[in-house]
């Protein structure tokens, strides 16, 4: 039996995309909502691949999706943290 990790790690199991993780519940059953979210990500991947001119084979899509879900979930951990407006990135570029 497994338990929820105490800190963000890269899980093998599918997670909900972060972009929806804090959205308000919609008036549909929870199962259907999750299914829609999964479909949304599939649609996003196909559209993004086209926009970025990235060739993707059908067989690659599950792994791409799993990786994207993990990355978005970890990004949601970052964006959930409030930062002051002056917390600017520290570039190394020097003109």
């Amino acid at each position, binding site marked *: 039996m497994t338990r929820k*990790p*105490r800190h963000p790690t890269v899980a093998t199991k599918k997670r909900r995309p972060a972009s929806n993780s804090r959205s308000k519940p919609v008036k549909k059953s929870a199962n259907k909502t999750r299914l829609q979210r999964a479909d949304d990500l599939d649609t*996003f991947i196909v559209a993004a*691949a086209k926009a970025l001119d990235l*060739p993707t084979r059908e067989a690659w899509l599950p*792994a791409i999706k799993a*990786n994207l879900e993990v990355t978005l979930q970890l990004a949601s951990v970052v964006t959930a943290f409030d*930062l002051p407006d002056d917390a*600017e*990135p520290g570039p190394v570029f020097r003109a």
Partner: protein
Amino acid sequence: MAQKSPDFAFASCANIAQAVNAGDVTATAMIEAALARIKKTEPVLNAFTDVTAKRARAKAKQLDEKRAAGQPLGLLAGVPFAVKNLFDVSGLATRAGSKINRDLPPARQDSPLIERLEAAGAVLVGALNMGEYAYDFTGENIHDGPSRNPHDTTRMSGGSSGGSGSAVGGGQVPLALGSDTNGSIRVPSSLCGIFGLKPTYGRLPRNRSFPFVDSFDHLGPFARTAADLALAYDAMQGYDGDDAACADRPVEPVAHTLSDGIDGLRIAVAGGYFKEAAFPEALSALDQVARALDVQREIEIPQAARARAAAYVITATEGAALHLGRLRTRAEDFDPAVRDRMIAGAMVPSTLVVRAQKFRRWYRSQTLKLFEDVDAILAPATPCTAPLIGQKTFNLGGVELPVRANLGIYTQPISFIGLPVVCVPVPLSPLPIGVQIIAAPWREDVALRIARWLEKNGAVAAPLPA
């Protein structure tokens, strides 16, 4: 470490250079012995992708001629070394662990770090196996096969500088170079039971090496003693304007400071995130080092889990940006595990990347405050000893997770803000494991002094393979 055998296998760089400088052995004999060791052990370790024997023999001959002419040879005279195959080596395509890069024209000039080591008398003997495009913590490579752990060849060397860990841990060479974006020096050092130095971000120039994530890429040495790390590090320091991130700082040699001891140094153990998911062996090693140093204090690096998450996001996206053209034209030629992560990374919205970079600035400021009160922080290097080659998942903190992405959970929050780290080997049985000694920016000397003190007092050592 004293020399173990007449062929100088497992001898330290310092001992080799002393013997060559003194004329006890010629550089040619030293290099021939190294080439013979590589030939003998390579079928098992699979650490090398290229052995530059002709070049090495010519360089050794030059050294012997210089000595005969009474000229000084340098502090690394006759020391055989090898480099992860993402360093430019004149005459070789810089493959960076990939199939695709083999089509590149051969490099026309060595990496500056190779040039600097050779200027100190060291002799390049080859290029080393690595995870494809450095996006890896396992040491496995789909094109070249896995580099193997010298202490149990059924186990991982760690990655992505797997060949570097394997070659030094297995006694093929006493010195190797690797790169560390999220832990790729510290993870193989830990799993292979050797010393590794990831210097401060911007300390050593990275030009003429194949990049991965510019925000986090570091280069550094692997060795079997702390003193050898310092010798190599000192030889490689110096500004190079061809790397935009290289800091224009004076050379700050450290080798002469190693015997200064640890009196007055304030050391703490990282708690919280750095202990939560660790296997018992990682905690045991950390405890062994802390007890040797008489460290009771524990501190928490703030938001380390978020730092790891942010490092993950930036890595995925910067890596994807680097390889976008190759993903478009040669996607079939990538390792599928790398390709699928890269394609996913290309699709992450830029707002999330900028947020991760903004968090990085905040995290840096908070972590640097800790160094007002401590000089060094101890943390595990890896959550466990070497997993089996081919092992896909492990149970981390009660959750089954991929090995490939999670062996670096304790290294990522540190390289995320470029802090210098020495990874020291704790020779547990049956397998060694590393502990990170983390210092403030530009204080590699502090981490190396602690590493040397631990080594001198028997708490850490690079074990010989059985």
